[in-house]
């Protein structure tokens, strides 16, 4: 069985409305974040992966299983939707239990796995309360519990961190990492770029139904030659360092910090810049810290999608 999710030249149109267009991806295990503005096709892509929507063109294989084969697919795959979608009147326990029964698990296994899943998201005390009385964060957690209850290998989670308080958010991210460390796929969509940056092994940036970038954040960033890498350096002799740095042919801009204690460097070749910086440090410049300023999802989003958004 393949350990990848393969999306091969997939397009989906809803009549005249574009969902996604010509998307080709090969998603490895780990935490993968789908990032993009509203209407960019994140949810459509998730629906396609989980077989809730059939592609107009192209094909999808989830660990070698076609989404057109739900009996096999949903043994290894789980989906938590973006919206609060709870059939009315159920308690948290009934909610998970009933969906496990729909998945075909027998009563005893359902009881056991429901209790386990609820325990994993720390909702034990509220398990027998009606979901209608849950807070937003509790609803998110019970949705996550129903997704993980049958121990899936592929978790597809639409905006799973929305509405969680910082503590629960940290616990949830830890749970994602735990899943990823077990070799599972955790595919999340999020607008919280800082968290995407923190948790993701790889990102997929979508805009207007197209994949505009995919891969590990650093790898994607390095391929964007039209946007020089920005590096912030805090040092003792910033003027001297600025003049020496500017001698490098790959450095396109240097800005001194207002306090004179550092500089911002824009370079077209980060690797060569870091090597040169080592030599400069040996020449007597006291460097306190070096940090990339735009080597994150936020910058990718801004460069790749922000421009398009602003030109709309």
């Amino acid at each position, binding site marked *: 069985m393949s350990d990848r999710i393969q999306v091969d030249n997939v397009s989906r149109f*809803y*009549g005249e*409305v574009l969902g996604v267009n010509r998307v080709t991806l090969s998603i*490895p*295990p*780990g935490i993968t974040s789908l990032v993009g503005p509203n*209407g960019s096709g994140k*949810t*459509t892509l998730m*629906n396609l992966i*989980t*077989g*809730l*929507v059939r592609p107009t063109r192209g094909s999808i294989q989830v660990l070698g299983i076609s989404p057109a084969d*739900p*009996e096999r*697919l*949903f*043994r*290894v*795959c*789980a*989906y938590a*939707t973006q*919206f*609060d*979608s*709870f*059939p*009315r*009147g*159920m308690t948290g326990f*009934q909610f998970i239990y*009933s*969906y496990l*029964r*729909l*998945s*075909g*698990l*027998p009563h005893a*296994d359902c009881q056991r*796995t429901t209790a386990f899943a609820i325990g994993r998201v720390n909702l034990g005390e509220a398990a027998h309360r009606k979901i209608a009385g849950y807070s937003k964060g509790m609803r998110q957690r019970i949705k996550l519990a*129903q997704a993980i209850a*049958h*121990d899936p*290998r592929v978790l597809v989670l639409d905006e799973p961190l929305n509405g969680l308080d910082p503590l629960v958010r940290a616990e949830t991210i830890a749970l994602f990492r735990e899943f*990823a*460390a*077990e*070799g*599972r796929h955790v595919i999340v969509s999020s607008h919280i770029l800082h968290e995407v940056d923190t948790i993701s*092994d*790889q990102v997929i940036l979508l805009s207007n139904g197209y994949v505009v970038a995919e891969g*590990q954040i650093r790898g994607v960033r390095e391929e964007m030659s039209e946007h020089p890498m920005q590096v912030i350096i805090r040092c003792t002799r910033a003027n001297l360092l600025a003049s020496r740095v500017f001698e490098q042919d790959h450095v396109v801009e240097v800005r001194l910090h207002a306090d004179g204690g550092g500089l911002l460097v824009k370079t077209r070749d980060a690797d060569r810049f870091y090597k040169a910086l080592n030599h400069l440090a040996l020449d007597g410049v006291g460097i306190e810290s070096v940090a990339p300023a735009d080597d994150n999802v936020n910058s990718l989003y801004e460069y790749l999608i922000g421009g398009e958004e602003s030109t709309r």
Partner: protein
Amino acid sequence: MAVYKRTYAAYEGSFTPTWSRFLILPRYSFARLWQSKFLVMFFMTCFFYPLGCVAYIYLANNLSILSSFGFPAGRLIKVEPSLFLYFCWVQAAFTYLLTAFIGPSLISPDLVNGAMPLYLCRPFSRTEYIAGKMSVLVFLLSLVTWIPGLILFVIQCSLAGWEWTRANIWIAGSIFVGMMIWILVLSLLALALSAWIKWKIAAGGLVLGVFFAGAGFGTALNSVMRTKYGTLLNLTEVMFTIWSKLFRWQADTGISVEAAWICVSVVCAICLWLLVRRVRAFEVVK
């Protein structure tokens, strides 16, 4: 890519049979329905007429009881196929109201809450979802239609003897087929309206309205166009035509049995099409 420890182990237990999974859906629907006292009372009311029929059948087969009170019972009380036709007719009216109460609450809450993706992101199809929801209506309506109908038939058989049973065994089939068609039409209609109209009261009203409006429109069409085919818009008349044929009764509804069957098939097909259009895991935001 990072190197992962591959410690994942999937569920390896047994699974329930695929065909039985749709039966998971009714359990919570029933629990919710029985919370309504009004519904429970109305449901009980649905059994008054069958009880009356039991008494009638008993008396018809025990005329000496009436004769002892001086009634000329022999000429007035007889068990004929028409008794079962009227039984179906009366019980159909009860089920019509029952469906208007129950039907709208079956699918619309799931659609309002966006629960469809949750149902369908499992080894569970749209057909099974519709079958699961429909089973609620089929079960409840069966309890007040063909099940008591067949019980009445069995009682009559046991009281009237083998000769009567042999001559009238077809009535059992007619009760079952006639009522199942009615249940199918009502269930599909209620589910389709429940899927398209999110407001329960409006959906319930429309279940009732479809019959009244159809009857009114059909009569108007007959008058204006000087035809009888307007009656095909009157589902009650259409069903009565079919039942009459099943119970070997001469009905003057003005339409042929074949036309009635085609009409029922078209109504069911339209309802199924409406359901399939609505019961899906995604919504398109334009």
